[in-house]
């Protein structure tokens, strides 16, 4: 298959204009001994053959819509995506455009992302949102960068709850290896029963940032108001990693006083897609806007007096600040920010509240039924949203294997990340799980416990 629209005659005419004899003559600057390597790759397929090959590969997978019942969450959630979302994403005007550097001919992208920013600030209660980051984990790492820049390197300690997503904590560690940070609280062997107040004693005058998750990795809903007050008393900033579906129902991070609210917006209209691309949202207070990484869209007027939108505060960015930039980011997740904006718009206030409520109701029904089975129980007693930790009578990996034989993904086995939770599964329930699916899970586990 080729996508080159040039005929041999046209090619020859063009070569003549350039003043060379053949295409190969264009590459004299390339060292001869390495020029034109023979690439050992499979021969080219036609579109029809490629379509069939890719179908075959996709069909080798077992997926959570056609083959299996799934209660897997842990940072990626199986939600319904209204048909409209993908219809809008498939508009070539959106998906084949570049970053909106030329605002006169990019108002579609610019206004859509401005609206995305507005939806995120209204959801979190925060004052500003950027145009998005790669994913929830990297958005959290950018919160660390912001805090580091805010204190100009004078404070170097982060206090991080062990109940922040384990992969997010890993990413922060990767990102910050040049900063010489001191970490506290990030200990997977700590007592996981204690609430957020356990972090308070770790916060001191050298703390730049406290990172907590809401609901936490185990699904628990904490009110962080007191912790945030304590952190502010020491002059530290607080970042909350929030689940956007939960925010539709729960008290906003802004009401608790958070300085930065980040998270993974995949639940808002983005398919599971085996882990990506997803959408990291980043919201904060207006006073930190100059330290915030990432794209930012602002309202203005054009020279015809029309309301319009532009990329603004661009001198914060790497192409001007170069090595002094807070971050090297030069893209956002434009198309996926659009996806989540369309998702929020088309469900609207009512539809979104229904999604949150269904998640909550079904998760609580599942938790109630599961904890009735002999040997099973809920690990924690705090309120939860749509995810909870199920304590099993044997190692979680064995339970999951048994469930998989019955066509069920039981949930995420916690033992690898938390040594004390070897027998524990993190179960996620969304509006996609019917009562019948939940009852099937319960039945299969009952059978197992009788074996």
């Amino acid at each position, binding site marked *: 298959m080729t996508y080159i629209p040039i005929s041999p005659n046209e090619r020859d005419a063009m070569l003549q204009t350039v003043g060379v004899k053949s295409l190969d003559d264009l590459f004299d600057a390339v060292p001869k001994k390495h020029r034109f390597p023979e690439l050992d790759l499979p021969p080219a397929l036609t579109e029809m053959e490629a379509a069939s090959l890719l179908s075959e590969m996709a069909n080798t997978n077992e997926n959570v819509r056609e083959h299996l019942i799934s209660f897997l969450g842990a940072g990626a959630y199986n939600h319904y995506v209204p048909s409209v979302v993908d219809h809008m994403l498939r508009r070539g005007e959106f998906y084949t455009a570049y970053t909106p550097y030329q605002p006169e001919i990019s108002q579609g992208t610019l206004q859509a992302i401005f609206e995305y920013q507005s939806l995120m600030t209204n959801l979190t209660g925060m004052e500003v949102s950027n145009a998005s980051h790669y994913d929830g984990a990297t958005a959290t790492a950018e919160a660390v960068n912001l805090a580091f820049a805010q204190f100009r390197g004078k404070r170097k300690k982060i206090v991080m709850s062990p109940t922040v997503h384990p992969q997010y904590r890993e990413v922060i560690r990767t990102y910050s290896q040049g900063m010489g940070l001191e970490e506290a609280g990030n200990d997977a062997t700590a007592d996981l029963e204690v609430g957020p107040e356990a972090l308070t004693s770790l916060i001191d005058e050298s703390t730049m940032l406290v990172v907590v998750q809401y609901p936490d990795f185990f699904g628990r809903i904490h009110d962080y108001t007191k912790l945030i007050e304590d952190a502010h008393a020491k002059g530290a900033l607080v970042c909350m990693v929030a689940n956007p579906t939960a925010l539709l129902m729960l008290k906003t991070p802004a009401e608790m006083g958070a300085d930065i609210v980040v998270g993974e917006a995949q639940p808002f209209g983005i398919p599971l897609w085996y882990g990506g691309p997803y959408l990291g949202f980043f919201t904060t207070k207006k006073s930190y806007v100059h330290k915030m990484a990432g794209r930012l869209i602002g309202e203005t007027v054009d020279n015809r007096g029309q309301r319009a939108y532009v990329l603004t*505060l661009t001198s914060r960015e790497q192409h001007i600040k170069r090595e002094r930039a807070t971050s090297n980011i030069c893209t956002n997740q434009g198309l996926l920010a659009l996806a989540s904006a369309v998702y929020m718009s088309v469900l609207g206030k009512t539809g979104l509240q229904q999604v949150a409520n269904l998640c909550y109701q079904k998760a609580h029904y599942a938790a109630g039924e599961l904890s009735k089975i002999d040997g099973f129980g809920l690990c924690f007693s705090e309120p939860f949203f749509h995810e909870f930790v199920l304590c099993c009578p044997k190692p979680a990996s064995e339970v999951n294997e048994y469930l998989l034989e019955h066509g069920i993904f039981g949930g995420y086995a916690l033992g690898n990340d938390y040594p004390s939770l070897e027998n524990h599964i993190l179960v996620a329930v969304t509006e996609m799980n019917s009562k019948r699916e939940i009852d099937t899970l319960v039945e299969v586990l009952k059978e197992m416990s009788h074996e």
Partner: protein
Amino acid sequence: MNTPSNLKYTKSDEWFDPASGAAGITDFAQSQLSDIVFVELLVDEGEDVTVGNAIASVESVKASAEIYAPAAGKVSAVNKGLSDKPETLNSDPFGEGWMIKIEGGSAGEVMDSTEYEKYCEGRTH
């Protein structure tokens, strides 16, 4: 271009008033940066600065710059109102746009106004 003769100037386009200890950015610098939209002062009252320390960070619509201390000494005052009105740097860089005052400031390598004017001319081509 305005270059008051009572002031001293640095190669990185700061001015320093030996009489009052005040320092800021020059008219030439503000015109090169164009519309300034953000100023952050990086030092506090009572801090000691040495020549070349970053004292402020400035962003315009098309550029960003660090501003360095033209003299060494103790910071006796900072212009706190500046961050709310960054455009002051464009409209009145030598007056309302002062950034900090340095007590007992001993200037580093500086030029007088005639030398500085020549230095600027050399860079506009």
